[in-house]
């Protein structure tokens, strides 16, 4: 169980995390979503006690991370794919982490087997691909067989097989009753993996709901309308309680009224229509709509593009 209460973090005068409050509960996969720069990595670092909060608190199993008697046996985290000394071997990296929490050597070997790195465990990590780095990070998180797990963008750099494997693993960990908290900037990925989603943008909480609810809300329909008299039409629609937004190409997106109602209203007012087509938003569009206007970069493609480096965001 991870509890986050009023969590705030400033770096200089920049607010990275702003008054976040939510719980991550055991037994399900909680997806942590937000565009790059939203504050996901910062939140995870705050939970892990790596950065100190400016205000508020983050606790694991009711304790601050610093007060956990056996940190690695209670919380496993995989925050960066290749934050490992490139000169050290995979086995040595895991072994030195295990030793700090009295975890037996056998467990290190088991985890190397589990993530498929046993054959390359003596090779220098510097020669590893990003995907292998991800798997080594996952092995490190699982070393202490912890009840709480944090993964920051764990599928970056993995091939489709690897992505499927991670998805399967995350669900398996949750099914074993563990708390699983996974960040991603891809809603579509989380829709397949998570049971619950926490969405943040610009450090603020946007949503905290079951995936099914998020999906239902996002499949909400809207109607695309084109008309030479769009000013009059939108005023009329607005007075009927519909929500109207104008797109760049001049068409109107109408929510809160269906195509039948809109057509009848237009006929009543003798407004000519050039298009009247019902649409449904994709999950990704719903996610974008939710975080819209809160993007760090005006480039909305930042959402769709996979982060090639796998670091999520820096400070």
């Amino acid at each position, binding site marked *: 169980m991870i509890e986050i209460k009023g969590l705030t973090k400033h770096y200089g005068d920049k607010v990275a995390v702003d008054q976040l409050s939510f719980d991550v509960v055991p037994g399900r996969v909680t997806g942590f979503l937000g565009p790059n720069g939203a504050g996901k990595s910062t939140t995870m670092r705050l939970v892990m006690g790596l950065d100190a909060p400016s205000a508020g608190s983050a606790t694991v199993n009711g304790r601050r991370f610093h007060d956990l008697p056996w940190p*690695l*046996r209670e919380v496993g985290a995989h925050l960066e794919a290749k934050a*490992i000394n490139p000169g050290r071997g995979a086995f040595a990296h895991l072994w030195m982490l295990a030793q*700090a929490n009295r975890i037996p050597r056998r467990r290190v070997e088991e985890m190397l087997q589990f993530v498929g790195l046993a054959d390359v465990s003596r090779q220098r990590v510097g020669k590893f691909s990003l995907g292998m780095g991800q798997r080594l990070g996952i092995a490190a998180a699982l070393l202490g067989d912890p009840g709480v797990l944090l993964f920051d963008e764990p599928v970056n750099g993995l091939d489709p097989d690897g992505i499927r494997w991670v998805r399967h693993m995350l669900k398996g960990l949750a099914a*074993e009753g563990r708390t699983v908290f996974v960040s991603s900037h891809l809603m579509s990925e989380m829709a397949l993996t998570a049971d619950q989603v926490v969405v943040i943008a610009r450090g603020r909480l946007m949503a905290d709901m079951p995936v099914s609810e998020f999906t239902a809300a996002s499949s909400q329909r809207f109607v695309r309308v084109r008309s030479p008299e769009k000013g009059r039409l939108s005023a009329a629609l607005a007075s009927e309680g519909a929500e109207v937004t104008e797109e760049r190409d001049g068409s109107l997106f109408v929510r809160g009224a269906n195509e039948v109602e809109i057509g009848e209203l237009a006929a009543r007012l003798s407004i000519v229509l050039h298009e009247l087509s019902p649409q449904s938003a994709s999950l990704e569009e719903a996610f974008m709509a939710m975080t819209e206007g809160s993007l760090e970069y005006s480039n909305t493609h930042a959402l769709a593009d996979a982060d090639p480096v796998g670091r999520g965001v820096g400070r």
Partner: protein
Amino acid sequence: MSVTMREAPAVSTSRRVIPDGRYPFSGLLASEWTKLRTVRSTMWTLLATAVAGIGIGAIATAATAARWSRMSPLRRLSFDPTRVSLTGLLLAQLAIGILGILVVSAEYSTGTIRATFSVAPRRSAVLVAKAIVFGAVALVSGEVVSFVAFFSGQAILSGKAPHATLSQPDVLRAVVGGGLYLAVLGLLALGIAAIVRHSAGAIGTFVGILLILPLIVAALPSSIGNQIGRYLPANIGVVLLSTRHLGSSFSPWVGFGVLCGYAVAAIAIGGALIVRRDV
């Protein structure tokens, strides 16, 4: 290279048991020892320490032995065979210092520090464990280099010039002191790295203290320069490696005490900063 992953997630087969107590300091020592022996930079810097300490010492000693017959009586009077054989330690100190720096700064530059503090959030304990493990390795290496340099140097001198034996006054102190000096100076470097965190910055600071600071002090009027000069680590080192007393300097052990004070202060400041800073 192809890698296969086991399909079914079978992370835990039994119920998890968390032991009593908390993660022990001995685990941190074991962890730091693993870190130190599993990177190549350790081997390279220790090799450099040995080559510089023993090799440069032998070259300097051989040069002195060759010159002995042509040396002025005054130079012969001030000849310190122990000091000459330990000349290489003044270069070896840079290599051991770089290892001390890397023990801390490499964790920051590679990001390993975040993994470290995720398994051991008592950061000052981690730093102390690093200092103990590195200090022990540096002390053993330093003493080996110092003794080997001494014996090989005396072997080179014998027959050509006066040479020293361990039973002569102050000789054992100088040779043992050579190893101690390398270890404590390495710890000072480790403390500087904990403050600075970046390898380049820490190495620059360390080299500045050893090599640049003496030049600045030498440029001062001697009345002030001598007063300040004796506090310099480089000066303390030269005194410790000599069997003769040198001018206005501290006595060997007082100087060594001052050097220990620097190392402890640097590590304490570094520790306080590491606890407060985000990583």
